């Protein structure tokens, strides 16, 4: 899977990826400065033009899940969306139940097996541990 997968996404796919990620960030109902910055960064990473309106109208979870189902047809892209969501969830040290629940529902919509979600999640956690250990050793 290419790290430059964003370039392979269509405008519609980019929009739904971005909406999903912003939804995750705002899932606890409030958005602090760090999260606002993260949303801003995501917009520039996804290079989506005219995204202002899209982001203002993310809609309800049900609407978003339906849009995900309509837009993300490719399995590889579906897996990548789950990976993106998991990464966002692990950016801080607080992967809470609402985020887990949302990922579960997205995975179900996209017909991604739970075991695959767990594998992806473990991969990210292992990477974080590896990073943490390296920082400790290097006294960074």
């Amino acid at each position, binding site marked *: 899977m290419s790290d430059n997968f964003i370039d392979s996404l269509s405008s519609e796919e980019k929009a739904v990826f971005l909406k999903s990620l912003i939804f995750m960030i705002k899932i606890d109902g409030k958005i602090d400065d760090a999260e606002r910055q993260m949303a801003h960064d995501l917009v520039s990473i996804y290079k989506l033009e005219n995204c202002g309106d899209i982001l203002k109208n993310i809609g309800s979870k049900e609407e978003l899940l339906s849009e995900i189902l309509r837009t993300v047809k490719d399995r590889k892209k579906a897996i990548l969306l789950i990976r993106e969501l998991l990464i966002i969830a692990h950016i801080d040290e607080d992967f809470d139940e609402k985020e*887990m629940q949302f*990922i*579960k529902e997205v995975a179900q919509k996209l017909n991604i097996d*739970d075991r695959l979600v*767990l594998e992806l999640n473990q991969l990210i*956690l292992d990477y*974080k541990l590896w990073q943490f250990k390296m920082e*400790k050793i290097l006294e960074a």
Partner: protein
Amino acid sequence: MTDLVEELKKQQKLYSDKKKEIEYLNIYTPDYVSSAKGSYLDFADQIKIFTSDLANYHQTDLDLTSTLVHENGHDEVAHVYHLGMGPKELYKVAQCDEISQNIRSLLYQRNEYLRTGDIKTLDSVDGRFSFYKEAVEKGEISPILSSQDKESFDKEMSLIMNGTMDMWNKKFNPYYKTQLDLLTKEYIARVGEKAQPNPKNYNKAINEMLTIGGVNFNKYRQQDFTCDSELAKDLTELIETGEKEDIAYVQKEFKKEVSTIPTEKVKWRDRRKGYVSKYDTSAREELKASSGTIVEDLGNGKSYEIDYTQTPETKEIPDLSDDEFIKQPTKESKLAERLQELRGLKSGEKSIGGGAASLLNKNRFIANDIQMQKAINDKIKYARC
């Protein structure tokens, strides 16, 4: 299959445990747990000072700064624990560490006494420096005179070194045994068979720890540190005579043990305002806020609520690593000596005016006298002509 959310939670819990394990396994220098006034956690780079409305200590800025100087001292000398040495030596170095930090606190209070002239600045809530205050009151030592007179200076520095060591051995040593044993275990967990006795490194560590404010207190020390830990003795024997496999096994076991640092056993547990010294990671994370309440789990179903406010980070810590912190008569007299010498006024035996030089001077005067006599004789001779 079990619910995905539950599985994710399990993964998250495992991750948190592993992360904690990494955090604790990376104790490359020992940490200090103090149930009393403050603590220094090297691995977390944290100095914690406890304050409480109910406590009799830390009610004055002087007392609080004195503790801050103590804990900061641990930070300044933490590097000596990277020197290779045997378990018994390590244990004694850790004792020396505590004693030297008490000396730092005393020196800070001594400077406050010199600055203000108020004898109360030498007080301490638990009376740890009463030996020094009494000596000042009785006129046995004089910090004021010390800065001008070498004999007085040496007498005072000797009392600071040996008085503090006596006080610590009697008052605190028994209470530090568990902590120093744990620290020794951490050291073995870290270095294993490399913990070979090394008198050179041991002496280097002691000298570094006891060089404070420009004075090497080690040269005033009249007694050696004594390792009364059976654990440190046994470990020394194991390192010196044991099989490599046995040492490796002990190291492995200690790694397990020190990675789960036991809950701090504190007898006195009033509600505390201030930094809280706990090994509970979640509690530490709560301290990110500048103030609040945390719950300390003591085990056995018991817990305490603790109010805290963080000490401002901007608080200035007196710099006892400054060579000029203790005003020394020797330095002054050296300068005075040099000035006198350059002015041609000095007549001490080491100066150009004394010792063999005095003979030289004497000869010069004699020579002058001879020359003068010769000149006079010549004049007389000419006059006769």
